[in-house]
């Protein structure tokens, strides 16, 4: 069991690409999600039954979150937002397995996801207003606000990634302390809180903030 966060930065130094447990668990969860998606979407029918109900429920939940904030474009952004939501939710849930740390408890994972969202936000803003119009929108209402707007834009991926990272790592540290103090029975309800409830809420929030950033860039 790892006693805390592993934050490693080796950029063209001694070690080139250190393979951490984050990488392994991340790939395992990706493979599990692909298998699960294949299983849930085989043999689709017009009248849903059984496992198809579950799949439609998840998709409807995510779509009902996108539709009010991006009117008439819910189905366009659904694949992107649903990918983020399902990956983050599954990564938080996989921390329930003993001895496995959540991939989202690593700044590299969350910062990667937040940077993807950041790039999508810039592209959508440019597609809506045109390249020059989007750049000019940073200098509104007066030109003196340009540096503040640029810094505010650059702070978005940082706060977006640190929110998920901080929540998962904080829960993990508290769980480690509890395991040292009371190894039996006491951690069970706390696992339900920190992994199920906080994990699901944070996955929903990560997706919702991505939608909010896109809708701010498009307005």
């Amino acid at each position: 069991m790892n006693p805390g966060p592993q934050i490693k930065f080796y950029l063209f130094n001694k070690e080139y690409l250190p393979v951490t447990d984050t990488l392994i668990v991340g790939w395992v969860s990706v493979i599990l999600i692909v298998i699960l998606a294949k299983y849930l979407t085989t043999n689709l029918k017009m009248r849903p039954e059984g496992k198809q109900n579950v799949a439609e429920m998840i998709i409807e939940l995510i779509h009902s979150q996108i539709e009010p904030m991006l009117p008439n474009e819910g189905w366009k952004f659904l694949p992107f937002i649903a990918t983020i939501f399902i990956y983050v939710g599954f990564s938080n849930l996989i921390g329930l397995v003993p001895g496995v740390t959540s991939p989202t408890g690593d700044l590299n994972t969350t910062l990667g996801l937040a940077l993807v969202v950041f790039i999508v936000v810039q592209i959508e803003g440019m597609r809506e207003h045109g390249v020059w119009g989007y750049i000019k929108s940073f200098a509104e209402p007066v030109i003196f606000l340009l540096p503040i707007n640029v810094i505010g834009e650059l702070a978005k991926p940082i706060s977006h990634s640190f929110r998920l990272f901080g929540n998962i790592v904080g829960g993990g540290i508290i769980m480690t302390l509890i395991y040292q103090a009371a190894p039996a029975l006491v951690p069970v309800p706390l696992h339900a809180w920190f992994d199920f409830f906080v994990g699901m809420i944070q996955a929903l929030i990560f997706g919702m903030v991505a939608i909010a950033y896109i809708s701010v860039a498009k307005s």
Partner: protein
Amino acid sequence: MIEFSPEVVRTVIRTASLIGAGAALIAGVGPGIGMGYAAGKATSAVRRQPQARGSIITTMLLGQIISGSTGIYSLVIAIFLVFNT
């Protein structure tokens, strides 16, 4: 001029960073007050207009996310201070 051994210097730095980590978590007070205020306002809004419950909860969550991020920053700084020195 007094020379300190590296062990003493390391201990002093470690002590200072642990005190700093504890002090950084004082920042948890602000987001707690702010998020509770937002939740209270949302409760009274739901009481006044129960049919708008869904959109009220979405708006409340977004506001709480923004106001809660300062607390997360302080938590991350505290974690860095504890584990990286």
